[in-house]
């Protein structure tokens, strides 16, 4: 059998000439010049504008809409209501697969949350559609809104996207009872909204029974198939173009009702239609991070060894569907304990269904776990880092599986050294800066799993010596246009400028889901395999051709490098791709590849990325105002394809951690069930001035098990650990344990009075 590889000898030391290089973004010029075309930038001939009218109540029924007034407004072309909506071929409440969420496409007059679409107005201009929607002046039959977590609980069958609702090892209750010390603490985390800068929107255009959709989407091939069901057309008739996604964070992986309505309007009116949700309208139908209340119970031996860890989470979901923030699951992954249990309950609120939001479960669970661990360290009079090292998991805590790789000790050491942790006083409220502000230092452990989905790619070597690689990859800021092209170039043994990389369109091979921090690994593996397949085909031609210097190298194998095949055992014997193809009279050779997890690797190993984050905050002792001033994180996430882009992901994630601890929360009006701060002025995202000095360090890690490329993923891990580090720093500054996030000024003013 022919042995073919594009790798030089040591695969994990240096991979080709492209991967591992800190290239700038290949789409950078398009993005800084305004030429990058996002969905709503499309303006096909004959375009109509649609605006959804959305409910101002959170539970009840729409009893009247002034359709005549809307229709009478100049420019309004059509008003679609439940009474007039043409039929769909599938039920918006259908749940046929894991990523199918129930949604509202005017299937009835019921209102199940505020900001639910209750009509669609289509007009010649955006201004007319907007005013037409306002003229509908809906009247409702209103029922009381169910809000908050103090409601009847139920035991969910699954949490997150199809994950088991709990896990256990040992007898936690017995271990707690027998422990020398016990810590019990309850934590509240707020509902959060993705708030990608690019609003959800699309331009839909029909040509007969063929549908083209320009939309930001994290899983376009899957979405295309779903839209095809609604409109009774074959999946191959749907083309989704999503070259640039203006932020996704999970919210653009799930289909939603407004999308269906826009496509429906385009078909009804036989003209292209654009629909872009307003910022406020996104606090409802496009998912959010569900509110949680978590209870942690820790049992400790005298020496600071964890003997029991119980993590229970209650999470809010909607009245009509389930996405249970899998917050407790993080305790299955981080610290060693002979007895661990995790469990979830849920309550139903009149809200849009929560969904996956950057580090779903892990972010919410991590802040609770890391604060509880800090409390345990405090109870044992131990340094928080020493305590964490004492309870370091040498194998995955519940499953007992060995880690595929785990450079967490190195992360602790590097981040602690860079931060200057060793000078930290054990007791809180010991440090002040020159302005008299209280200074505190805290830390947290970062962990995130590294899943792989399924992806396909195709690679072509052309007679001019250049390459073409295709997969429907998704760039939502993580840098797929660049990182996947780097992998593509290495897979073909070419320089990156010799490879055309096509991505971001659903007519290309399925690049899988851009989520779970698994896209680079999944699509990258498909691309790498496709490259290897193309090289193998080229090698078949060369080694069988008596005129080639590689003739007869079949047993020795060949190596592909810099546009040439070399005989493995005699590198002086080589030939360029172009010469091989030219002599064979072949225009090109094509290879295909698939990416996916090797089931055996997942069976035998725990697959996770790790990190350690250290944070400094300053708190005004008189005003309670708190600022994160400094963060240092070190992360080990397997092979890093592009350090520049990976660091940006990690910095962004760490700032999301700061935001989780100090800034963002959706505030629900208990009387109406509406989010009271459904805009970017009142929903606090970190602005530039809120952002401290942030430094991420990359700890080298070689992992032969996660996948052949050794890639783990960096998109989400930065939040975990960081949120808890900030919260723990607040305690260290003030001596106050805040267990409700985000930390508010009033939580710290109590201490000022004391």
């Amino acid at each position, binding site marked *: 059998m022919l042995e073919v590889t594009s790798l030089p000898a040591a695969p994990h030391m240096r991979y080709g000439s492209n991967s591992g290089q800190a290239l700038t973004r290949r789409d950078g010029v398009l993005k800084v010049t305004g030429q990058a075309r996002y969905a709503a930038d499309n303006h096909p001939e004959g375009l109509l504008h649609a605006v959804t009218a959305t409910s101002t109540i959170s539970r009840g029924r729409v009893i009247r809409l002034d359709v005549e007034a809307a229709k009478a407004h100049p420019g309004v072309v059509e008003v679609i209501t439940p009474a007039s909506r043409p039929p769909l071929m599938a039920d918006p409440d259908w749940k046929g697969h894991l990523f199918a969420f129930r949604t509202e496409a005017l299937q009835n007059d019921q209102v199940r949350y505020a900001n639910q679409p209750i009509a669609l107005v289509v007009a010649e201009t955006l201004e007319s559609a907007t005013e037409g929607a306002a003229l509908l002046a809906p009247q409702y039959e209103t029922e009381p809104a169910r809000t908050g977590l103090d409601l009847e609980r139920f035991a969910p069958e699954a949490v997150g996207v199809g994950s088991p609702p709990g896990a256990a090892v040992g007898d936690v209750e017995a271990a707690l009872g027998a422990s020398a010390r016990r810590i019990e603490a309850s934590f509240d985390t707020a509902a959060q909204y993705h708030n990608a800068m690019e609003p959800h929107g699309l331009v839909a255009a029909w040509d007969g029974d063929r549908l083209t959709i320009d939309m930001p989407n994290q899983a376009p091939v899957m979405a295309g198939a779903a839209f095809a069901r609604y409109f009774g057309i074959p999946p191959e008739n749907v083309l989704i173009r999503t070259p640039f996604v203006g932020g996704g964070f999970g919210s653009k992986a799930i289909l939603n009702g407004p999308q269906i309505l826009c496509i429906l309007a385009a078909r009804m009116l036989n003209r292209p239609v654009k629909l872009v949700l*307003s*910022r406020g309208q996104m606090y409802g139908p496009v998912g959010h991070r569900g509110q949680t209340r978590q209870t942690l119970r820790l049992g400790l031996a005298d020496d600071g060894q964890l003997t029991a860890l119980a993590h229970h989470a209650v999470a809010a979901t909607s009245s009509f569907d389930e996405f249970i923030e899998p917050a407790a699951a993080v305790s299955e992954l981080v610290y060693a304990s002979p007895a661990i249990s995790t469990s979830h309950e849920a309550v139903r609120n009149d809200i849009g269904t929560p969904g996956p939001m950057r580090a779903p479960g892990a972010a919410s669970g991590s802040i609770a776990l890391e604060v509880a661990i800090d409390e345990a360290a405090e109870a044992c009079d131990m340094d928080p880092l020493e305590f964490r090292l004492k309870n370091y998991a040498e194998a995955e805590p519940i499953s007992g599986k060995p880690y595929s790789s785990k450079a967490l000790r190195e992360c602790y050491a590097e981040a602690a050294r860079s931060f200057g942790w060793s000078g930290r006083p054990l007791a809180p409220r010991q440090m002040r800066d020159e302005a008299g502000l209280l200074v505190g230092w805290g830390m947290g452990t970062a962990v995130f799993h590294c899943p792989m989905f399924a992806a396909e790619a195709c690679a072509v070597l052309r007679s001019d010596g250049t390459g073409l690689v295709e997969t429907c990859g998704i760039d939502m800021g993580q840098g797929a246009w660049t990182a996947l092209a780097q992998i593509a170039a290495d897979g073909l043994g070419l320089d990156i400028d010799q490879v055309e990389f096509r991505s971001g369109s659903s007519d290309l091979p399925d690049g899988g889901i851009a989520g779970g921090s698994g896209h680079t690994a999944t699509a990258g593996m498909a691309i790498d395999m496709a490259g290897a397949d193309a090289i193998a085909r080229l090698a078949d031609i060369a080694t069988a051709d008596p005129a080639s210097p590689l003739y007869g190298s079949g047993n020795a194998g060949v190596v592909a490098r810099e546009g040439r095949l070399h005989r493995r055992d005699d590198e002086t014997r080589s030939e360029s791709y172009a010469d091989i193809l030219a002599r064979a009279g072949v225009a090109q050779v094509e290879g295909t590849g698939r990416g996916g997890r090797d089931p055996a690797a997942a069976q035998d190993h725990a697959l996770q990325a790790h990190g350690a984050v250290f944070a400094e905050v300053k708190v005004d002792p008189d005003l309670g105002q708190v600022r994160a001033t400094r963060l240092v994180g070190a992360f080990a996430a397997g092979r890093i394809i592009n350090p520049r882009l990976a660091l940006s992901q990690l*910095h962004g994630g760490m700032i999301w951690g700061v935001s989780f601890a100090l800034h963002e929360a959706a505030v629900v009006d208990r009387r109406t069930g509406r989010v009271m701060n459904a805009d970017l002025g009142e929903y606090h995202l970190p602005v530039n001035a809120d952002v401290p000095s942030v430094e991420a360090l990359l700890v080298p890690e070689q992992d032969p098990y996660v996948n052949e490329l050794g890639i783990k993923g960096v998109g989400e891990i930065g939040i975990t650990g960081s949120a808890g580090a900030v919260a723990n720093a607040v305690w260290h500054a003030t001596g106050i344990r805040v267990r409700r996030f985000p930390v508010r000024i009033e939580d710290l003013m109590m201490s000022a009075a004391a």
Partner: protein
Amino acid sequence: MTFSISLAINGEQRTVELDDPRVTLLDLLRERLELTGTKKGCDRGQCGACTVLLDGRRVNACLALAVSCDGGEVVTIEGLADGDELHPVQAAFIDHDGFQCGFCTPGQVMSAVGLIAEGEAGADPERIREGMSGNLCRCAAYKGITEAVLDARERMAGRSERSAA
């Protein structure tokens, strides 16, 4: 009823017949003049994605009615580069990875250009952070943005010193 307004957009004098007084400067650019580089993130002046220069000042184009800009001079992200040569701020954003998804980037870049022109982008990163805080970035590329503005300011100062010499 139509409104005839005259605007200099990226150096080109344009007369626009508007049939609707409700049209914002942002929607005029995006929906009627095919200048879609300027982005709509919130449509209420809270995110800065629509930042353009109007008569040399940074404005949120979503808060300006187009008719109120009659006679004005507008510079958008499309008008910044000189042919293939990027403006120093644009080049610095690429070098410092001052963006991820890129959606807020046109606004960030225009805001940075305005900030530097205002003389408010000193060598102190704190001043830049404050001066750029009207432009949200959910990807949180703030570190790169701040570094890019500092770097661009130095590049531009060096360039003007050279041209003055």
